[in-house]
């Protein structure tokens, strides 16, 4: 036992603490009566409740999935964010195909042995998946119709993975990569 525990004040405090508390048995009833007397809070309409702040607790898994969903929305939305000039607000390189279509233009190539033919050009970002040609039944002819804006367009066909120029169109010379681009002029009454 320490000296401080022997102090008379300590014994005095302990005695007071041990004394049973005599509470008023009617106090609880009075408090509850006062609470019941208060007007009940008005129930907000559903649409207004949607704007009321409330704490939400999420587990890491649910929170992560929601965050991933928001990222997904951002990515998908970003695809539509390119402006008319093709340059988006954050300075990314432009989508070179971002122009208004004005007329349907037909591209054909004879490739009887081919299993797959696509059209790539400056109008579809040179993406072979965007304009696959369809074989005309019982022939070696492949065809696709593409909406193109007026102007001069460079393109090639991708025949079974090999890029080839259109044999029926003028060429623009060396493309800088050891191949030649074909040229199609649209919107000036030209068939070139």
């Amino acid at each position, binding site marked *: 036992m320490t000296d401080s525990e022997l102090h008379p004040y300590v014994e005095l405090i302990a005695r007071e603490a041990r004394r049973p508390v005599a509470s008023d048995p009617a106090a609880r009833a009075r408090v509850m009566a006062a609470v019941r007397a208060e007007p009940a809070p008005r129930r907000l309409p559903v649409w207004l409740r949607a704007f009321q702040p409330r704490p939400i607790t999420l587990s890491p898994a649910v929170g992560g999935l*929601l965050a991933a969903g928001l990222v997904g*929305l951002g990515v998908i939305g970003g695809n539509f964010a390119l402006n008319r000039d093709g340059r988006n607000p954050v300075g990314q390189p432009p989508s070179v195909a971002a122009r208004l279509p004005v007329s349907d233009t037909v591209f054909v190539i004879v490739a009887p042995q081919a299993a797959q033919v696509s059209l790539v050009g400056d109008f579809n970002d040179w993406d072979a998946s965007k304009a696959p040609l369809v074989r005309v039944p019982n022939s070696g002819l492949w065809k696709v119709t593409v909406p193109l804006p007026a102007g001069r367009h460079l393109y090639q066909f991708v025949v079974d993975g090999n890029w080839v120029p259109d044999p029926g169109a003028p060429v623009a010379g060396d*493309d*800088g990569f050891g191949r030649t681009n074909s040229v199609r002029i649209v919107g*000036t009454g030209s068939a070139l």
Partner: protein
Amino acid sequence: MRLESKLPRWLVPPALRISALLLLCALPAAAQQDPYLKLDQNSRIAIEQLSDSLRQLGLSDRPLWSKTLQGIRLGVDNRTIVGAVRKKFTNLRTAFTVLGPVGDAELDAAAAVLEAGAKPSQLSVFKQRQKGRSDLQAFTVWADLIYRSVPGDEAATAITKLWEDGADEATYRRLWNDVQADISQGLNPGAALQARVREAPVRPAAAKPPTPPEG
């Protein structure tokens, strides 16, 4: 770990499903969205500088990015892509210097003529704009003729003559068809062009562009 959420029970499964669906949609989209990511940083900076230079001249940088994308889709190495873009930039700038302000398509076509091997002085004749006429066909046929082994001077002379005679688009188109057919039958490209140019109709109403006063 116990999965717990204070979201209403009826809301959680749809929220999870929608989130997962968006994520699944976004992943391939994010992978395909920016093919330019295949460029290394130095190459990208180099191309962006060229692009900025072109825009400072008031020109569209679309041909440069198109060239870049083509190289990327072809799987060409970055150095070759930058080289091709730089060459394109040089030809566009030269064409602009020679022709002055023209449409994007015409400028690109003129750059292709230079790229094919024509001299800027040969292109300078076309600086004299003819009202209501586009030189797109003339430039396109010109570049093609050079590519098909027609001597550069002969191609320039032929196209310039037709242009000064006021040839319309159909005339250039017919010329290209005929010369191409002749070459494929084995004729000498230069001779084929000469013969077809002589046959080309001259529009009587066409006036030569005014010659600037000397001195």
